[in-house]
């Protein structure tokens, strides 16, 4: 079953973004930073310029907050979980 999950993952492909790249492109408007933690956690600290879109609200609000599906979007949360 886990195998099918991984296939799903590969279907919705994404690339990993290293910290150095984010740091280097901190002021690059072409890169959209999306923090998927809950609002309270977001407010206690986030990467500058990040947009807050909690996981629970993605399906509902993603299209509204991120209207352009071709934009380069870097997603992150609290840690590697």
């Amino acid at each position, binding site marked *: 079953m*886990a*195998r099918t*999950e*991984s*296939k*799903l*993952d*590969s*279907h*919705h*492909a*994404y*690339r*990993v*973004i*290293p*910290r150095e790249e*984010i*740091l*280097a492109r*901190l*002021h690059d408007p072409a*890169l959209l930073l*999306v*923090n*998927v*933690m809950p609002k309270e956690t*977001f*407010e*206690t*600290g*986030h*990467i*500058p*310029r*990040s947009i807050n*879109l909690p*996981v629970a609200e*993605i*399906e509902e609000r*993603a*299209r509204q907050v*991120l209207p352009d*599906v*071709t*934009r*380069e*979007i*870097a*997603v*992150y*949360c*609290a*840690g*590697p*979980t």
Partner: protein
Amino acid sequence: MGKHAVGLLGKLGYRNLRYYIGGMADWIENGGPVEKVEPAAAPPRSGQNIQSPISHTSWTGFLDLLAGWSLERLVGFWLGMILVFGLVYWGAGISMGWGLQAGNVAVKPDLEGLATAIYFSFVTALSIGYGDVIPLGALRILAVAEGIGGLLIFGCVISKLVSRRQEELTAEIHRTTFEDRLDRVRTNLHLVFSDFGAVQQLQVEQGSLPGQVLRRLESTVRVFRGELQTVHDLLYRSQAVPDEEALESLLANLVICLQSLVELSGSRPKNNGESAALDNGLRAISNLAREICGECVPRNYAPALKESMDQIHELAGKIG
């Protein structure tokens, strides 16, 4: 959570998704700039006491910007700033008649004057202040501003120089411990493999697993679990990436260990209560190995490595 979010966004049709695995923990640990949302303050009364949050953030933002620049860029900016200020001192002398004065004589608007202006700019930015050339009128404000800016940027340059050496050292230390650790994992996996072989041999000879052999198997499984965890972490979390050759031999060792474990676990006595620890160990191994496959690890590897990972994933399902 982040990976889940990426998956959701992918399903919604977002095509250019990137995933920052380390997240906030990694960001903060490595000193990345952090922005906070201040709790909504009580509205200022009668327009007094308004702290301007904008200038505060733009000020720290400027510092963050400087800190994020490379050494070359900082030095370039610093030199550029000095030259621009020099030009302004010189230009002010030409256009407005008041500029720099050297020894009670106004600096002339010629090439020599330009050189003097740039010289004055350097002396000011480095906060040396010989006093042989002095600014007049409003240029004094400009000179003070240049002094502040020069010190600030120069400080950044110095701190960059110092931390660069430090970063090299820490990287070196990380690399050595990392290599030691890989070596240890490889050796342990080899031992695990030979131990599995020995247990298998005993099993063939005696037809079943007597208590003592079972204990031995348990302890080997524990070691194996630990090393599997290390490889798992290496694939998922590690900032350092081992070279492909080292990783390939690690994965190959993992595969043969898992293969003999699958054989062993198939023929061991089941649910007799005696091997609860063994059952737990096997379950943990199965869960860990299941998460290793070519497509589910965050980085992209060579096809041969992916194949090994897929093999590990497949073997995981057969344990128990």
